[in-house]
C-alpha cells in the first residue's frame, strides 16, 4: 500500500484504439480492502481500465500503480499481487476443472497446491465436478471456476470484469455470494459491471464511467442522495414515461398528488444517477 493509504492509484490514464479514446485522462484512487465498482454502459472504458491495471494493455499516457508498484515499469511484480476474472471465459475447455487450477497454480508458483486447489473448488461448490472437462460446464459453473482460479494464488487485489454477465438472475445472486466470500483478509476487489443492482449490492464505492471519462465517484448511497432519493414516475398525455426526482418522500408525495394520471413512487438507483449525469441509460 502507498503512503497515501491507497491500494490502487490511477493518474491521467489514457488509452486510444486508433481514433477511439477508450480511456480518457482517468484519475482515481482505490482504498485498501474496499470493493470498488466501475459502472457504465458498453464502451464506457471499464474493461480497458481493467486491462491497463492487469498488465494486459499498455497506456498511451498517464500512470497507474498497485500497492505502490508502477504497473508499466514492474509488470512481473504486479502479476504476483493480482487475480483476474476476465469478462470472457478463458478456461481451457478441454481440460478438467482440477487441471485448469493445477496449471494456473503452477504459473503463479502456488505452494501447497493440492490442498489449496481442493479448498478453492469446495469454496465455489465444484469439488464434485473436479474431474469433469470444462466444456461440459454451465455458464454459472464456468464463472465460479474462474473465480476459484483467480483466488488460488491468494492475491491481495481481485479484478472481476463483468462477473455475472450472461447469467440468469438466480445464478447471478449465487455469484454475488461467491464474490462476497472473496472479500476476506482485507482483500481489495475491483468489479466492472453494467448491472445497477450488482453495483449497489456489492460495492463500497462506485465510479461511473461514460465514454472513457469519470463522471461520478462516491458510495452508492451518496451518489443517489446527490441527485435525489425518490423518483416519481408517471405516463404523460403523449404516452411517454416521465420521471421527477425528489429530495424527500414528502416532496415525492406532494408531486404525486398534483398528477392526474396514476403515479409510482420509488427509491432512486444508480441508473437514475447515470441518467441525470449523461441523459442516457446504462443498459
Amino acid at each position, binding site marked *: 500500500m502507498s503512503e497515501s493509504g491507497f491500494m490502487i492509484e490511477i493518474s491521467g490514464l489514457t488509452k486510444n484504439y486508433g481514433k477511439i479514446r477508450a480511456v480518457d485522462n482517468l484519475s482515481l484512487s482505490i482504498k485498501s480492502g474496499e470493493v470498488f465498482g466501475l459502472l457504465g454502459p458498453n464502451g464506457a472504458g471499464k474493461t480497458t481500465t481493467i486491462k491497463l491495471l492487469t*498488465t494486459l*494493455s499498455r497506456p498511451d499516457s498517464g500512470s497507474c500503480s498497485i500497492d505502490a508498484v508502477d504497473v508499466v515499469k514492474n509488470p512481473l511484480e504486479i502479476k504476483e499481487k493480482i487475480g483476474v476474472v476476465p469478462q*470472457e471465459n478463458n478456461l481451457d475447455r*478441454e481440460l478438467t476443472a482440477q*487441471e485448469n487450477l493445477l*496449471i494456473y497454480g*503452477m*504459473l503463479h508458483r502456488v505452494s501447497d497446491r493440492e490442498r489449496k486447489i481442493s479448498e478453492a473448488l469446495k469454496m465455489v461448490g465444484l469439488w464434485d465436478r473436479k474431474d469433469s472437462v470444462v466444456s461440459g460446464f454451465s455458464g454459472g459453473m464456468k464463472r465460479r471456476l474462474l473465480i476459484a482460479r483467480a483466488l488460488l494464488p491468494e492475491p491481495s487485489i481481485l479484478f472481476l470484469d463483468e462477473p455475472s454477465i450472461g447469467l440468469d438472475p438466480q445464478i447471478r445472486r449465487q455469484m454475488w455470494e461467491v464474490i462476497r466470500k472473496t472479500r476476506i483478509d482485507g482483500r481489495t476487489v475491483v468489479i466492472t459491471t453494467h448491472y445497477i443492482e450488482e453495483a449497489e449490492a456489492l460495492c463500497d464505492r462506485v465510479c461511473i464511467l461514460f465514454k472513457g471519462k469519470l463522471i461520478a465517484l462516491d458510495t452508492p448511497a451518496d451518489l443517489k442522495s446527490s441527485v435525489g432519493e425518490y423518483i416519481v414516475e408517471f405516463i404523460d398525455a403523449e404516452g411517454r414515461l416521465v420521471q421527477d426526482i425528489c429530495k424527500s418522500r414528502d416532496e415525492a408525495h406532494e408531486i404525486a398528488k398534483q398528477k392526474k394520471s396514476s403515479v409510482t413512487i420509488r427509491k432512486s438507483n444508480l441508473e437514475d444517477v447515470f441518467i441525470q449525469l449523461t441523459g442516457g441509460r446504462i443498459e
Partner: protein
Amino acid sequence: MKQPGWYPIFLREMLLFRRKLLKLGYLFSAMISPVIYLIAFGFGLGKSVQISGTGYLGFLIPGLVAMSSMNNSYTWVSSALNLNRLYFKTFQVFIQSPISPSSIMIGEVMAGMVKGLFASSLIIVVGFASSPDFSINMLFVTALILNCFLFASLGVITGMCTKSHEDTATYSNFFIMPMAFFSGTFFPVDKMPILIKSVIYMMPLTHTNILIRKPQFDSDGLISLGVLILYAAAFFFYGSRLIKNYSE
C-alpha cells in the same frame, strides 16, 4: 527443486496433446500427407529413379521426415497460439502470470517440438519398414531437433502476428508450402538455375535437408548447421520479443 517458469505452459500443451492423441483423427492427420507423398513419389515415381547411386526412397524419406517435422512444429504452435490469443483468450492467462516472456516462449516451443518429433517419429517408423537404404545418425537427430525448434519458434512469431485465424493459412501458403517443395525434400536442389538456387539456399529447410542426409560431418554440414542455429536463435529471440511487447 524450483520448477522452471516454462514448465506449466509445456505441461498444459501436453495435457491437451494427450487428449488429442486418444482421438483417431489426430494420428491420421499427422501422417496422411507424408504417407501420400511416400506412396506417390516413393513407390510410384521413385521406382525408376536413382539419386547419387542409391534408391529414391533412401533420398525421399529423410526429406519427408524434415518436412513433417517442419509442418507439425510450425502449424501446431502457430494455430494454437493464434486461436488461444484471439478466440479462446487462454494466452492472456500466461501474459497475466508472473513468468518471464522467455518462459512463455520456451514452453510453447518445447510443446511444438514434441509435436514435431512425434509426427517425425511416425514417418521414421514407416521409413525403416519401407526402405533398406534409410538410416539415422547423429547428424540426422541434430538436424531434426534443430528443425523442430526453429519452426516451432517461427510458429510463435506467426501466431503472435496474425490478426485472424485465416491469416495463418496465408502465411503457410506463402512460406511453408514453397519450402516443403523447393528445399530439397523431393529432389536435389544443386542442379537448379543459379538464381533460384540462391533463393532456395536462404530457406532454413534446405539446410535441414542437407544436414539430415549427411553420412558424416563435413564443411557443407558445418555451414548448414551454422545457418540453422542462426535462424533458430533469430526466430527464438524475435518470438520472445513479440511476447514481451504484447499489449491489447
